[in-house]
């Protein structure tokens, strides 16, 4: 599934609606982060830099409009934003789109329709978002940055490449040979399969994963696997 690893921030103060949207998004394979008010939304966005924001306009603390402005002006982000709102007047819609929203969905909405809109917006703009997020671990391959729950993790170039390769194929077993081809495409160095094991070992150490099951799983006699869920 193409949606895998795409992270989406859902900002909505009504808990039931938030849960509903989350359920639908997760069903489509997105990684979902929730925020209850405007301030939480800004914090979450600064920490995780999601691929898309679904933003309610009437929020406590900081209104949706202010969040939108902050994201666009202060944080200078081009992240696609879908506004989710009970304001149905045409002028509100125009204002929302002018403020930099990519789409505007009015309540009451059909969740299936919202999913279709999310997909459309991401199809148009998603290529800008090549970061992958799983279980709170985000990798931005172009910048070579890795974050876990917003905390940066410093990896070497090879480790980063390896992790990206693994995360590109979540839950899929990758052989050591495949990994060697990715890391050293021109076979300029004589490497053994041991080298990969060493890299994986270091990677595990640096990720300091203390969750229930390992992020990177060793599959005996075959290779490694990134456990996405």
């Amino acid at each position, binding site marked *: 599934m193409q949606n895998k690893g795409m992270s989406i921030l859902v900002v909505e103060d*009504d808990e039931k609606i938030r849960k*509903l949207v989350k359920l639908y998004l997760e*069903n489509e394979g997105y990684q979902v982060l929730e925020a209850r008010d405007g301030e939480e939304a800004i914090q979450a966005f600064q920490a995780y830099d999601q691929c898309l924001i679904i933003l309610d306009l009437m929020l*406590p603390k900081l209104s949706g409009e202010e969040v939108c402005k902050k994201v666009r002006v202060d944080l200078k982000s081009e992240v696609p934003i879908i506004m989710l709102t*009970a*304001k149905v007047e045409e002028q509100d819609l125009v204002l929302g789109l002018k403020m930099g929203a990519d789409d505007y969905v009015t*309540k*009451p909405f059909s*969740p*299936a329709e919202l999913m279709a809109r999310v997909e459309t917006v991401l199809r148009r703009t998603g290529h800008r978002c090549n970061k992958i997020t799983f279980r709170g671990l985000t990798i931005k391959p172009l910048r070579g940055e890795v974050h876990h729950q917003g905390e940066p993790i410093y990896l070497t170039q090879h480790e980063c490449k390896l992790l990206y390769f693994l995360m590109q194929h979540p839950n899929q077993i990758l052989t050591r040979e495949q990994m060697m081809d990715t890391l050293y495409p021109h076979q300029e160095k004589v490497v053994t399969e041991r080298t990969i094991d060493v890299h994986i070992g270091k990677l595990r150490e640096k990720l300091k994963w203390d969750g229930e099951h390992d992020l990177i799983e060793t599959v005996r006699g075959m290779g490694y696997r990134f456990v996405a869920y």
Partner: protein
Amino acid sequence: MLWKLIIVNALMIAITIWLAGVSVKEFACLLVDQYPYIGREESVHFSETLQYFLFQSSFLAFLVAGILHYFFMRNLLRPLKRLGSSARQLAEGEYPPALPVVSRDEFGQLTADFNHLSQKLEQMEEMRKRMVGDIAHELRTPLTNVNGYLEALRAGIVTGSPELYQSLHEESLRITRLVEQLHQLNVWEAKKLSRTNLQQIEMETVMEECKESFRLVLQNKGMRDIWSVQAAQVWGERDGLKQVMDNLLSNAIRYDTGGWVRIEGSAVGDYYQVTVTNQGQPISADRAKHVFDRFYRVDSSRSKDTGGTGLGLALVKEIVEQHGGAAGLNVDGDEYSFSFTIPIDKHIPGKKEGGGNRTSISNS
């Protein structure tokens, strides 16, 4: 209209001049007839000349009167015409700009009244539009939940569970509550309280009943309640007063942060004042002015966690003002005192005595 008036008036003037002229002429002829030195022919000639002059002057008077009248009446009728076209505009649903009040006579008064009427109509329309918008807005969130979850259930994204049904039921109850309060508000607005449907009520019994009905809720919430109620007789409607107490207490409980609520009732002058004080969620000063407005929510996100509809206090205000009293909010730090007054016994409701529209009552 204009022409009819001109012709009638000009005719009247012509007739008056004609009558006056004829009598003068007849008298002159009589005098001439009696004069011995004037012959018969001369006398006839004199009479004909006079007759001729009389016709001429009557016709001239008719013309002059008509012309003068035309200009005079046109000026007089112009504001009336403008008023007419504005009224037609109003009937078609447009709101004409205010007409200039040029004179201080009946026409000027009428124009001023008309301006006032048009302004009032525009305000009402504005209010109605806002109200419909607000209702639609308030309905959107619960409807999103009901529709969304039903769709998810049908699509198999979520599986039904008692908790889910419970939560959906809450949403539909929210809609029901909104509709119910709207209905109440409508009923109270249409109701014109008069002496015939008011009874003498012992305020302390109303408060006692209220205390009894809230005892369990307060107990479950673990809130302390302090009552100090003076006995007094007021003119009122029992159900209305209970509704007011009910709404104020529900609010105090819903937005409570301090764990206590104090209810005081005492006679202040000609009024009986009830004050419900609690330590609640903060309300900023500029928002405190609007708490009695319909659909006004202190929390701008209109969050439904608290379950309010934004109509409770509007209803309080409506009922209290129908009784000839006033409702108000007094803020002291984080203590909020919602109070209302009801005239004691002898007062006739409907007559708004002492600022009936007061929105703030200073608390002693």
